[in-house]
């Protein structure tokens, strides 16, 4: 059972503000999903390696030179930010 307190803990980790009236619903939904995925406990995985990528992958290397985007793309990337100034994305104060 994922109770209300646990939901609040996860929401904070996820940086998500939940509405008070939603918390109970999320507790119910997540509990039922977790009950369902608990069937994985039936599987013995002793000695089995975890698999993150399906194909054999290796590091993709390139020359150590700056591959810069055209100015037009840079301008557009800045443009989509909600708050900006002089070609920079503006962030709220992080140190008081």
């Amino acid at each position: 059972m994922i109770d209300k307190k646990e939901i609040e803990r996860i929401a904070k980790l996820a940086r998500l503000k939940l509405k008070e009236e939603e918390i109970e619903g999320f507790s119910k939904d997540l509990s039922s999903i977790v009950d369902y995925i608990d069937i994985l406990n039936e599987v013995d995985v002793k000695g089995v390696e975890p698999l993150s990528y399906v194909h054999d992958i290796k590091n993709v290397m390139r020359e150590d030179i700056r591959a810069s985007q055209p100015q037009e793309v840079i301008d557009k990337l800045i443009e989509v930010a909600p708050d900006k100034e002089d070609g920079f994305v503006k962030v709220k104060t992080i140190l008081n």
Partner: protein
Amino acid sequence: MELKELTIKQIHQSLKNKEYSCEDLVKEYIKKIKKEDSKYFCYLSLTEELALEQAKKVDEKISKGEEIGILEGIPLAIKDNILIKDYKCTSGSKILENYVAPYDATVIRRLKQSGAIFLGKTNLDEFAMGSSTENSAFGITKNPKDIERVPGGSSGGSAAAVAANLCCASLGSDTGGSIRQPASFCGVYGFKPTYGSVSRYGLMAFSSSLDQIGPLANSAEDLKIIFETISGIDFLDSSSVNLEEKDEKLNIKGLKIGIPKEYFVEGIDPEVEIVVRTAIKKYEDMGAEIIKVSLPFTKYALPIYYILSTSEASTNLARFDGIRYGVRKEGENLLDTYMNSKGEGFGKEVRRRIMLGTYSLSSGYYDAYYKKALKVRTRIVEDFVKAFDKVDCLMTPVSPFTAFKIGDKVSDVLSMYLSDVYTTSINLAGLPAVSVPCGEIKGLPVGLQIIGKAFEDKKILNIANLY
């Protein structure tokens, strides 16, 4: 000009024969979309200006007597989580309601080079999370076969646009079935390529170890034409690889088709089973050999999928924090701004999945959920490797049921998730799979799923083409 079910080759021939100009063709599609799409809501936005500009270039080439490529002048629809430069890309989310793409996705760049035309951006479940397109922040897409029913999801708009003849073909993305299941529900062809064969640069990431872009169309041949254009290595997506598969002529005599018994168990609509088995029989009649196989870990695929995809999503979607993109909801401090922006910007299903993913990655649960799922994923892959020792491809249903009614599964999260029971294991194993319309039950389409070995994409498309 009447726009009915058209294949790429048909349009290509008509353009070459000057039966109509490309501009007329595009204007006709736009007119039809403006007139009819209010019934279905396939499109979130149109890229009309770009389409007309592209069409003029094609017409100029034709009038000069130059040869045109097979995709030149072909009107396509693009799922709205794939970037087309200078046009809005919302991913079906309020958080990106006014986001304008700063660059082209690699698939778009390749399609532009081939002369294909983009009519507009199609509706989807928010950030591709869903099986019915009911999770879009902008409205529900309706199934053209029955407008009281869902088109499937998450590429519901892309499937419905092909089914309603509001484009010739489209692009979708498939993380756990999001191309194949809507193709099946709407009665069109849909293809999820081998993991890594198509670059995801410019596709909004949902679950990076599973996501693939693929086409939806009116024939298997069309799927292949689009696939050949968009696939191949791209240095902007380091998981992409070069395909070395030759397009060999298929010999159906003696082709070994595996039927996994775990896909025909309790939970499947008996009528769907009959239609799918009849379709498989057709291949047997053509000379293929049918072989019973077993994939014993099948029942664990869906729980693994919901752990891994949500875990990856919880990190991928952390970037929508109100700083770099889209909507910002101010708070008293930086943490509040993050929490408000994401809390108000994301819809309920997206928040639910971020919560589940954060939970499985959180301290104390990581080993029990995330790591355990990665280990059982190894078992799923081994199942397929063993099966493919004996057979050339596998055939299964795409979905245990036909399109359901709008609203039927919204309140029951688990029953909605079960829509993907036959499709997620293919993503977990990174295999190619195609959905082939193979019959109808009371007017509702049924899809046959053909699964291939990794990097045998063309082979299964050729098998699909025989149906």
